[in-house]
C-alpha cells in the first residue's frame, strides 16, 4: 500500500507529530527512544525538559561541549538550558510523583483498549529493570505514548488486553503510532487522526483493540 519507509523516518514522523501536541508553558519528561527525538521538533520556547536523573532544563549538546557528568535518563550526553536547575533523585521523583510534570512521553510494548500500557517487562524473561516508568505513569498530568503500531512479528501492539505485565492501572492520554493518533477518553480509544500515508483500512487491520472511529 504505502511505499516502505525506513524505521528512522517512521520514528521521526511520530516524534514530529507528538511535538505538535506540546503548547507551552509545559514541563515535559521524555523517555528513551522515540520520545527523545521529540525535542528536535518542539517549537515552543516555554517547554522545559525534565530528566529524572536530576535536571530541569535539558537541551541538546554538540560534541565539543559534551560533559560526561551531564546526561539524560537514557545516559546520553545533554546540555543545560539557561535557567536550568539540578536536584537529587528523590526530589526529581517528587516532581514526577507529586504531579508537577505536565507531560510524559513514553514508549510502550503494548496498549490495551482502555489505554493501559505495558512497557517494562516481557513474560518468560527475568524482570530486570523498571526505571522511572511506573513513577511517570502515576504522576505525569498527561501521558503520551509513542510506538510502532505492530510488533516485529506483525501482531498489533494495540490489544484488547495486555499480555505483558502492565506498568500502571492508569490509562494514558494519547497514543501516536506510524498509522494513527488515538485519544483515550473515559477508558476508550478514539481514532483522532490518520498519520500521513495511512488509511483507515490499515488501522482497522492492524489494531486488535476496539476503538471509536470518530
Amino acid at each position, binding site marked *: 500500500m504505502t511505499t516502505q519507509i525506513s524505521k528512522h523516518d517512521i520514528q521521526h514522523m511520530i516524534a514530529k507529530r507528538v511535538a505538535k501536541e506540546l503548547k507551552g508553558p509545559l514541563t515535559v519528561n521524555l523517555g528513551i527512544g522515540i520520545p527523545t527525538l521529540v525535542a528536535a521538533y518542539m517549537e515552543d520556547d516555554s517547554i522545559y525538559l525534565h530528566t529524572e536523573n536530576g535536571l530541569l532544563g535539558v537541551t541538546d549538546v554538540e560534541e565539543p561541549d559534551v560533559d560526561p557528568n551531564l546526561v539524560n535518563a537514557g545516559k546520553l550526553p545533554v546540555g543545560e538550558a539557561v535557567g536550568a536547575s539540578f536536584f537529587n533523585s528523590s526530589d526529581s521523583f517528587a516532581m514526577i510523583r507529586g504531579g508537577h510534570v505536565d507531560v510524559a512521553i513514553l514508549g510502550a510494548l503494548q496498549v490495551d483498549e482502555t489505554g493501559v500500557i505495558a512497557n517494562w517487562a516481557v513474560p518468560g524473561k527475568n524482570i530486570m*529493570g523498571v526505571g*522511572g516508568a511506573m513513577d511517570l505513569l502515576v504522576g505525569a498530568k498527561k501521558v503520551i505514548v509513542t510506538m510502532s503500531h505492530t510488533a516485529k512479528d506483525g501482531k498489533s501492539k494495540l490489544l484488547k488486553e495486555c499480555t505483558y505485565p502492565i506498568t500502571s492501572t492508569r490509562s494514558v492520554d494519547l497514543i501516536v503510532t506510524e498509522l494513527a493518533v488515538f485519544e483515550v477518553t473515559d477508558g476508550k480509544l478514539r481514532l483522532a487522526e490518520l498519520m500521513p500515508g495511512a488509511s483507515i483500512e490499515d488501522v482497522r487491520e492492524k489494531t486488535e483493540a476496539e476503538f471509536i472511529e470518530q
Partner: protein
Amino acid sequence: MAKQKHSAAEALAAVKSGDVILVGGFGLVGAPLTLIDELTRKDVNGLTIVSNNLGESGKGLGILLNQNKIKKGIGSYFTSNRDVGDKYQRGEIELELLPQGTLSESIRAGGAGLGGYYTTTGVGTDLAKGKEEREIDGVRYILEKAIRADVALIRAHKADTLGNLVYYKTARNFNPLMATAAKTVIAEVDEIVEPGELDPEAVITPHLYVDAIIKAQQVLTKEGVVSR
C-alpha cells in the same frame, strides 16, 4: 575529626562481610568509582548492594558481582548488566526490583527516620505483589518500607575538611540521599577545600552526615573511566 583519609583502603576499613551498602550513581555518572574499585579488592562477601544498577558487565559493581561478593541487589534497572540476569537465573543472587522513584524515596525515608510510606507508584502491577495496599482519601496506595544501610559509598564534587559536600550536575542523583541513610558514609570527591570555601546556602550534604572523604582516583571522562 580527620575525616580525610589517605587511601580508599583506609576509608573502607569499616566495611565487613554481610554489610548492606548503598552505592551512588546513575550508571557510571556520579558513581564512586575509586571506592567501588577498592571494594573489589577487599576480602568481604555476602554483601547487599543498594544501587540504581549493578554496573555493567565486568565493570564497576559488575566486577563485585562476578566475584560472587553480592548476595542481594536492590535497584531499579539491572538491565544495564546482563550478568545480573544470568546469576539470578542460576539462583546465585537475590534481587529486589523497585521503581526508581520508590528506590530513591525509600532511601530518603531511611535517612529521615521513617518506617515506610504510601505511594501510588506500582499499584496494581507485578511490583506491588506482597505489598500492603490501602486507600487513603479515595486513592489507592501501596506501602513501601524505608531502606537503611551499614555503609554508603558516594561521589561528590567538592568537600570541605568538615565534610560538607556539593555535587556536580547530573552526577548528584542518588548520592545526597544515600549520605543520609547509612551508619558510615564515605565520600570520594574531586577536590577537598577549607571550611568556609563552600557557600552555606549551596551546601547539599551538611557535614554531620559524612564520616570519611577521599580524593577520587578513578574518574569518568569523555574518554571513559581514567585513573589519575
